[in-house]
């Protein structure tokens, strides 16, 4: 009895509240984004909002069922769940492609997308495989098993031609990074065996994953902005070059982070973090400088054009970049406080200027209707949720639960970053849903189950001996 009383105490209400808020906002938004004036009843199952509510209902039901299962059973059921989805991923390859991707399994509108569920099962399986290993260090066998789980699923998804989901799976490399799996052996292999060094480890190798991410992130932003010219009403007559803007922004960001660290970081690590920050700042400035200089002065015109095309800087507003351009116009025309609920001009279902406005581009509907206030709130909510999941992950005694929680955080982060990023024009169009927001049964159910399993594992964290 004592054990069950203990369990209910362990539910993480902060996460539940944020997810509930996101679900509520999502429903309200789908009701606007897919509004059918002939069927205004929100629970009408012939409408997308009716269906979305149904999916949430099914997701919650499955979640409650899961919360009745003991977390140890969840762990034990992992290989079965993983293999089931793997079979579905293979089965799906024999279907007719829809929009160029073979990702739907089932009949008509009641199909499911195994790739959506594979994010969940792969998270579990990765945790399962790594947690099997004993001790802090990862054995070569564990490493190979972990890589097999991830790479095998990724391959199947790549064959499906679902680029978006494929990209999301690189999230697992961050989780591996957290668990100490590095690319250092490869780099050491080259350095020591070929160049004759005697390193035991390299900083670059160890932090390869976040480094790559940061490099790509800064490269895109730098290439995107460096050539542009900005004018501001508070600086009349001054044309601010893009690269100047970048350096100013970076400086402002560094000062902000420095202030945050100064205020909130633990006393003992303060000095270290501050020095890392200062070094990172100069590296970032230097990097921006090198990339800008190369882009502006070294590259040939045709090389620049190729980059610009990929970044969407050269736009074919009414052709290839139609979706993106309309979505950006919708977001941008939201203004500070939005045009009002169900008043969207561009992205409303009636005007239909933004395609896929109930799925991949749903953020544009929300942004147009709720403006900067609404969209900033959404960004804050997601950021809080992500940080909270990391906090949950780090308080787990069980390695299985920790790895799983980190996976959930990174997958939601990828979805959030890519989806919102493409809606605001800093990432090329990659069709993946915004968690809890975009219409879609498979993704909604998959994310809800993911969260429920996370909450369940967290609620029983004290019973498990790591």
């Amino acid at each position, binding site marked *: 009895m004592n054990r069950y009383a203990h369990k209910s105490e362990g539910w993480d209400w902060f996460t539940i509240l944020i997810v509930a808020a996101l679900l509520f906002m999502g429903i309200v938004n789908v009701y606007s984004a897919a509004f059918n004036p002939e069927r205004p009843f929100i629970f009408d199952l012939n409408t997308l909002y009716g269906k979305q509510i149904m999916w949430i209902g099914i997701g919650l039901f499955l979640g409650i069922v899961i919360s009745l299962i003991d977390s140890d059973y969840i762990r034990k059921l992992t290989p079965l769940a993983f293999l089931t989805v793997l079979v579905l991923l293979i089965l799906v390859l024999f279907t007719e492609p829809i929009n160029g991707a073979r990702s739907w399994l089932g009949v008509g509108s009641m199909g499911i997308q195994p790739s959506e569920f594979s994010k969940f099962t792969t998270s579990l399986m990765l945790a399962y495989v790594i947690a099997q290993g004993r001790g802090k260090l990862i054995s070569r066998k564990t490493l190979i098993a972990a890589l097999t789980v991830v790479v095998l699923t990724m391959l199947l998804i790549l064959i499906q031609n679902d680029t978006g989901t494929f990209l999301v799976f690189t999230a697992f490399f*961050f989780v591996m990074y957290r668990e100490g799996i590095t690319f250092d052996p490869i780099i050491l292999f080259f350095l020591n065996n070929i160049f004759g060094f005697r390193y035991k480890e390299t900083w670059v190798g160890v932090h390869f994953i976040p480094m790559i*991410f940061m490099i790509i992130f800064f490269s895109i*932003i730098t290439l995107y902005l460096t050539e542009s010219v900005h004018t501001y009403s508070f600086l009349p007559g001054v044309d601010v070059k893009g690269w100047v803007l970048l350096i100013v922004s970076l400086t402002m*960001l560094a000062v902000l982070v420095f202030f945050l660290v100064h205020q909130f970081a633990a006393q003992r*690590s303060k000095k270290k973090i501050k020095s890392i920050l200062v070094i990172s700042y100069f590296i970032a400035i230097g990097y921006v400088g090198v990339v800008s200089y190369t882009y502006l002065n070294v590259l040939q015109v045709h090389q620049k054009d190729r980059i610009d095309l990929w970044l969407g800087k050269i736009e074919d507003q009414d052709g290839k970049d139609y979706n993106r351009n309309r979505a*950006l*116009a919708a977001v941008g025309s939201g203004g500070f406080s939005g045009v009002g609920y169900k008043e969207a*001009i561009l992205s409303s279902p009636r005007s239909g200027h933004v395609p896929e406005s109930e799925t991949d581009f749903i953020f544009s509907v929300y942004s147009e209707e709720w403006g900067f206030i609404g*969209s900033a709130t959404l960004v804050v909510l997601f950021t809080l949720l992500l940080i909270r999941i990391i906090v949950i992950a780090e308080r787990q005694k069980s390695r299985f639960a920790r790895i799983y929680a980190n996976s959930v*955080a990174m997958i939601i982060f990828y979805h959030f970053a890519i989806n919102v990023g493409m809606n605001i024009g800093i990432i090329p169009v990659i069709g993946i849903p915004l968690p809890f927001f975009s219409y879609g049964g498979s993704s909604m159910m998959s994310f809800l189950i993911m969260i429920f399993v996370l909450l369940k594992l967290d609620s029983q964290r004290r019973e498990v001996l790591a």
Partner: protein
Amino acid sequence: MNLESRKLVFIFLFLLVGIVFIGRLFYMQVIDDKWIERAGEVAKRKIIIKPPRGILYDRNKQKVVANKTYYNLMFVEDDIKDFDTVAFSKLIGISVDSIEQRFAQIKKSLDRRTRSKKTGNDTVVNDYRTYLPHAFLKELSANEMAEIATELPDFKGFYEHAISMRDYPSPHGANIFGYLNEINATELNADRRFYNVGDFIGRTGLEKYYEFSLRGQKGVKVILSSARGKRVDNFADGKLDTNAQQGPPLHLGIDIDLQAYGEKLMENKLGSVVAIEPSTGEILAMVSAPSFDPNMMVGTRNIRKNYRKLYNDSLKPFYPRPLAAEYPPGSIFKIIQALVGLQEEVITENTGFPCTQSLVGCHNHPPASNVAKSIQYSCNPYYYHLVKRIIQQGKEKSIFKDAAIGLSLWETYMKSFGLGIKPETDIFGLRSGVIPNVEFYNHWYGEYRWAFSTIRSNSIGQGEVKLTPLQMANLAAIIANDGYYYEPHLVKSMGDDGPLDKFLVKKKSMVDPQHFAVVKEGMRDAVNEPYGTARRARIDDIVVAGKTGTAQNPHGEDHSVFMAFAPLDNPKIAIAVFVENAGFGGTWAAPIASLMMEKYLKGEITNTYKEQRILDKNFIANDE
């Protein structure tokens, strides 16, 4: 390395992305206006609303050019569902095959040739869009539409669209009002801001001259358009909308009943009747015979049916005779010669000339012992003597040089009567007539190689001199006014504005008012006294003054000409009638003018015999 601290890497990533996103959102949504403009470009669509054209009223406030609602049967291909072609063909009364042909025809009509910049080759681009409305049938009358309308809801994707077209309650005045036709490429390129392909534009007559007023001001309705081009809502609650404004009504000087009567009298005859109110210059009636029902030229359906027929008609109903036909005026020209003679003091009121028939032919009449009698009897030799005195005033010894001086002087007189110059009136298609001058004869005969005797035919309105019927009527108005005139014009007022400024300018002839009395006396006697040439123009209890003319011409029988005004002491109407190849002026033109004046002044005809005689006469059948 402490792996646990790597969570900070995650948190740093989340914060970094969160901050970048919020920064970017703030920039896009709050600072940068570019996207709002872009949204406008994408979703705003301007719908141009063109008002119905301005209405034309006659001088008695009767509607003479109105608008009538017609309907286009529209369709949007994307909206067509379960299309039953058999039922549809029954409904609109064309065969099933024709329905398919019509769809194909609409599509093909939107082909557009463009030249590729790359290859230089012509390629055909088709502008047909399945989500935009197109007209399946055009210009259906209300009755035709009513037959279809009840069953139209059964055919999804089809609907009716009201349009406004011209309507002429009284089927007269076609040559005055003109007609509308679909705009052509030149007209379109001249004013792309107003016109669109398929618009109608005034092609002739008042519709053309007053096009800019009649077309009104277009309104703009800004709508929120869907990606498929459909109206979703008003944009910004209609704050950017402007209303279409119908063109102002035009109030004409025309009396439509008089016009109709004139056209009736001129049936089966070729020629013109022009009536002017002398005190204002307003044109009361302007008949061009033969004429046609202006309703025949309303809308593309009618124009396609009738244009070629009218255009190819050997009697040229489109030809605006009153404005453009230049005729020798015949004896009515003697009036102006007499006036110039009096003004130049080469004669006095009581100068008499012998009727020397060896000089120029004449008819038997008592001696023309003064100016008035010369007019009453229309004595040809009298005017030979008179005009010789005007032209050969003896200012130079050489008769050739003298004639040149005389003719130049005479020409300035003529111009002061609006002859030999284009009237500046409010209609297109005018011609100036011909007043031969020094250059004219120098070119023909050589300098100083001609004198009065060479050009003497002009004395009696033959030879080189030519007038349009409008000029003849205006001449009558000038005489009625004792020497001045207002430019003859059709539009009295436009909306609340009076006539155009140029019609308020009093134009004076070079002949002083005192010289007109004697001329008028002669004209009165020509109508009312024995031996007068225009006795058929007499009206009981109205004193008519008139002058006949019989214009010889190389095209056959003489033209019958008459100009007059009435009543003599307070002229209300001045008129010129010209009947081609009808013989003596007193026989046909005079009674027609008389009937017109009586109709206008009394509102009824007392002498029905006179009327019936005119109505029965068919000069066209005689020709054939």
